[in-house]
C-alpha cells in the first residue's frame, strides 16, 4: 500500500464480503425451496428470498467496484484520495440503505420492478452515494496522473451512475417500463460494468505480470471499444418480445452476437500478458482469480449468452432455465470473480503483510468455479427440456417443472459447493494464519530463463 488513503478500500471489501455471504445463503435457500417447496412458504415466500439473493449480489458487486476504485486510483493517479471522510460517508449511506432495504423486504416493503425493488429513499441514497463517489474519485484523478486505466474506469462509473436515473423512471405503460428498465439492467451488465471489469483486469495485469503499460492500455481500449460497440445496440436482444418494433430482432441478433468479442479479448489479453510477463508475483491466488474470471466470463457471458441470443432461438428459450443458467455463470465469471480477484490482490497489501492463506483461497476458487459450472450445466439441461416440452409441445408450466426435479436437486448440490467455497474464501481473507507460500522453490526447467 503506497498511499494511506487506499485503506478506505479495506472497509468496502469487508462489507462487500459480508453481503456476498448473505447473497450466497439466499441463493442456497432459494435452491432448497425448488426442491422442498413448502419450506418457509408463508414466513418467507420465494419472491422475498430471490429479492435478497439478487439485491445483495448487486450491492456487493458495486461495493467491490467502489472499493477497487478507491484502491487502484491513488496508485494510478499517484496521489491520495481527495477526501477520505467522504469515502467513509458514502460507505455508511450504502450500508444504511442496504440494511434498510433488506429489513423492509423481510416485512413486505418493496417495489416490484425486478432488481430495482428498493424503496424510493434507498434509491435516492444510492444516487447520493454515487454522486459523492464520482466527485471524490474524479477530483483525485484530476489532481494526479491520468492513465488509460483510470480514464476507462471513470467512464464506466460515470455512465453507470447516469443510467441509474432510469431506476426512477417507471412509466404506466408496461412495455415502456420494460424498455427503460433495460437501460439500467442491460447497459449496466453488458456495457458500463464491462468497462469497470476491464479496467480492474488491466490494473491487475499491470501489477501481476509487469508487462509494459503501453501494451496493457492499448489492449484495454480495444477491449472496451468492442464491449460498447456490440453492447449498446446489443440491448436489442431484450427487445424482441416485449412490445417493441420488429427491427430489434435483427439489430439485437447481429450486435449481441458480437458481445462475445470483448470477453474473448479479455481472456486472450489475460493469458498473453501472463505469458509475456517477466514478473513472478507472490500473490498466485490473485493471478488465478484474474485468469479464472476472464475465462469463466468468456464462457458464461460470451458463449452461454451467444447460445440463445439469436431471435430465432430466443423465441423458444426466452424466460426458461436457459436464461437462469446463463445469468448465473455470466455474473459469477465476469463480476463476482473479478471482484474476488481484486480483493485477493489488495487484502495482503491493505493489511500490510505477505499474501496469506493462498492455498485455502485457491481451493475456494475451484470449489466455487466447479460448483457454478455444474450448476450452469444442469440448468442448461433443465432449460433444454423445458424449452422442448413447454415451447414446442405446449405442456403446461407446472407439469414441465415436475419433470425437472432431478436437475433442481443437482443444482442444490452445486449450490452447496459454491456456498462452501464462498465461506472458505471469506475465511481465507479475514482470518490470518501463518502460512506463506514462497514462490520459485522448484528448480528451473531446462531452457527456462526468467
Amino acid at each position, binding site marked *: 500500500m503506497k498511499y494511506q488513503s487506499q485503506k478506505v478500500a479495506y472497509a468496502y471489501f469487508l462489507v462487500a464480503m459480508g453481503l456476498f455471504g448473505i447473497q450466497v445463503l439466499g441463493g442456497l435457500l432459494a435452491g432448497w425451496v*425448488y426442491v*422442498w*417447496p*413448502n419450506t418457509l*412458504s*408463508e414466513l418467507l*415466500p*420465494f*419472491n*422475498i428470498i*430471490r*429479492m435478497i439473493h439478487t439485491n445483495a449480489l448487486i450491492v456487493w458487486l458495486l461495493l467491490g467496484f467502489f472499493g477497487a476504485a478507491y484502491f487502484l486510483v491513488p496508485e494510478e493517479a499517484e496521489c491520495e484520495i481527495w477526501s477520505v471522510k467522504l469515502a467513509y460517508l458514502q460507505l455508511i449511506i450504502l450500508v444504511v440503505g442496504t440494511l434498510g432495504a433488506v429489513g423492509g423486504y423481510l416485512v413486505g416493503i*418493496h*417495489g*416490484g*420492478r*425486478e432488481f430495482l*425493488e428498493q424503496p424510493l429513499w434507498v434509491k435516492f441514497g444510492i444516487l447520493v452515494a454515487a454522486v459523492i463517489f464520482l466527485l471524490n474519485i474524479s477530483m483525485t484523478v484530476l489532481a494526479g496522473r491520468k492513465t*488509460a486505466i483510470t480514464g476507462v474506469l471513470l467512464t464506466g462509473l460515470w455512465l453507470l451512475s447516469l443510467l441509474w436515473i432510469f431506476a426512477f423512471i417507471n412509466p*404506466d405503460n*408496461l*412495455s*415502456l417500463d*420494460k*424498455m427503460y428498465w433495460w437501460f439500467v439492467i442491460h447497459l449496466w451488465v453488458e456495457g458500463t460494468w464491462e468497462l469497470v471489469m476491464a479496467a480492474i483486469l488491466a490494473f491487475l495485469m499491470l501489477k501481476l505480470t509487469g508487462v509494459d503499460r*503501453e501494451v496493457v*492500455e*492499448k489492449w484495454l*481500449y*480495444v477491449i*472496451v*471499444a468492442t464491449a*460498447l*460497440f456490440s453492447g*449498446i*445496440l446489443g440491448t436489442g436482444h431484450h*427487445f424482441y*418480445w*416485449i*412490445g*417493441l*418494433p*420488429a427491427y*430489434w*430482432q435483427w*439489430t439485437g441478433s447481429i450486435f449481441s452476437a458480437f458481445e462475445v468479442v470483448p470477453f474473448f479479448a479479455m481472456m486472450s489479453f489475460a493469458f498473453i500478458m501472463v505469458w509475456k510477463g517477466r514478473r513472478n508475483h507472490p500473490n498466485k491466488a490473485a493471478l488465478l482469480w484474474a485468469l479464472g474470471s476472464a475465462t469463466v466470463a468468456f464462457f458464461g457471458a460470451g458463449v452461454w449468452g451467444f447460445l440463445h441470443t439469436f431471435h430465432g432461438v430466443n*423465441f*423458444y428459450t*426466452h*424466460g426458461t432455465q436457459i436464461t*437462469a443458467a446463463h445469468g448465473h455463470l455470466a455474473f459469477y465469471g465476469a463480476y463476482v470473480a473479478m471482484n474476488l480477484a481484486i480483493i485477493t490482490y489488495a487484502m495482503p497489501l491493505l493489511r500490510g503483510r505477505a499474501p496469506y492463506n493462498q492455498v485455502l483461497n485457491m481451493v475456494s476458487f475451484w470449489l466455487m468455479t466447479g460448483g457454478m459450472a455444474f450448476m450452469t450445466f444442469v440448468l442448461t439441461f433443465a432449460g433444454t427440456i423445458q424449452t422442448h416440452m*413447454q*415451447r*414446442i409441445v*405446449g405442456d*403446461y*408450466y*407446472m407439469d*414441465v*417443472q415436475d419433470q425437472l426435479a432431478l436437475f433442481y436437486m443437482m443444482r442444490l448440490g452445486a449450490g452447496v459447493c459454491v456456498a462452501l467455497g464462498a465461506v472458505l474464501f471469506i475465511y481465507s481473507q479475514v482470518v490470518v494464519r501463518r502460512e506463506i507460500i514462497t514462490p520459485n522453490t522448484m528448480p528451473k526447467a531446462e531452457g527456462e530463463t526468467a
Partner: protein
Amino acid sequence: MSEILTKSRARNIFYGGSLFFIVVFVIMTIHSHRYVVNVSTAGMPLSPEVILGKHVWERHSCINCHTLHGEGAYFAPELGNVMTRWGVLDDPEAAFETMDGWMAAQPSGIEGRRQMPFFEITPEEMRGLAEFLRWADQTDTQGWPPTDAG
C-alpha cells in the same frame, strides 16, 4: 498492429465509436417509444384500472416468482398470456372472477407443490390486476410466446 493502431488511435476509436452507437441507440429508442404508445399497446386503453393493477402487481413483487413477457423469475408460470390461457381475454367480468377465485385459493398447502402466498387485495385492486393482465395480454409481442403454455 502496433504500428497502425497506436494507443491514442485506440482511445479515439473507443470514445468516438461509442458516441456514434449511443446516438444511433437514442434515435431507435425514440422511435420505439412512439411505436409502443401508438401501435403495439394501442389495442386496449391504458385505463386507471390497468394502472392500478400495475401498481398492485409491483407492490406484491409478483415478478420475483412469475415471468411477464418472459422476464422475471422462473419459479412460477408466465402471466403475459394468462388471460388467453384462462379463455377470458375479451371478458373483463370473467377475468375478474377467475382471478379472484384463484387468488382466494392460495396457498394450496399441498405437500411438495410450489406455494403461492395469500395476498390481501381489495376487490377494486383485484379488478385492476385482472385488467392489467388483460392489457398486457393484448400487447403485440411479435407472436411470443410460441404456445399458450407461456
